C-alpha cells in the first residue's frame, strides 16, 4: 500500500461495465516530504475520500476484486483509507519536517 493524495476526479461516459458503479479518482503517490512524487494513476474509492485528501491506496488486482466483490473488475488501485496524520518516530522525521505531518 502507498500513501497518496487525491488530486482530481475522472469523468468517463464510456468504460468497462464492471467499473460503472465507481467514482474514479486521480491519485498521486507522496514522497517522504509528503509532496506529490511519481506517476498519477486512477483509483476507485471505498471510503468516501475527497479531492485534496491524503489516502491509503492498495495497488493489487486481487485486493480490488475482494473489496468490490467483482471477480472481473479490470483494476488494481483502491483507496482503502483516509490518512489523518503521519507520525514519525523520534529522530526519524526527514530534515525540516516536524514529528507530526
Amino acid at each position, binding site marked *: 500500500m502507498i500513501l497518496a493524495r487525491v*488530486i*482530481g*476526479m*475522472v*469523468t*468517463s*461516459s*464510456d*468504460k*468497462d461495465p*464492471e*467499473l460503472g458503479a465507481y467514482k*474514479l479518482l*486521480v491519485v*498521486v503517490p507522496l514522497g517522504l516530504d509528503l509532496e506529490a512524487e511519481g*506517476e*498519477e*494513476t*486512477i*483509483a476507485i474509492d471505498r471510503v468516501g475520500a475527497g*479531492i*485534496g485528501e491524503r489516502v491509503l491506496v492498495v495497488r493489487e*488486482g486481487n485486493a*480490488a476484486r475482494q473489496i468490490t466483490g467483482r471477480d*472481473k*473488475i*479490470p*483494476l*488494481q*488501485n483502491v483507496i482503502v483509507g483516509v490518512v489523518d496524520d503521519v507520525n514519525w518516530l523520534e529522530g526519524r522525521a526527514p530534515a525540516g519536517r516536524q514529528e507530526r505531518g
Partner: protein
Amino acid sequence: MQFARVLGRLVSTRKVAPLEGYRLLWIQPTDARGHAEGEPLVAVDAGQYGEGEWVTYVTSREASLPLRDTFCPVDAAIVGKIDFVDFADGERVTSPTATREAGA
C-alpha cells in the same frame, strides 16, 4: 488504471486465438493532464474506447479480465474513454492537446 492517448492502430492478421477480434492500439502513457510520460506500448481495446483520443488502461493480470477469454496473453487493455478530469483548483482538462500537436 493509467492515462494514455491513442497514437494509432496496429494491423495484425496473424495472432494467437484469444486475441482474435480485438483491436490493438499503440498508446502513449500520459499524466492526469494529458502530458506524455513514459514509454509507448500496445494495448488491447477491450471495448470501442480507443475511438476517443484519451483513454484509461489497466496492466498486468487485470488486463485480460474484460476480454471474452480471461486466460489471454495480454498485459495491457484499454478499459475506458476519458471525457475530462477535474482538479482540486477547479481546472478541467478535457483532452490532451499534445495529441494534435504530435499530428497523431
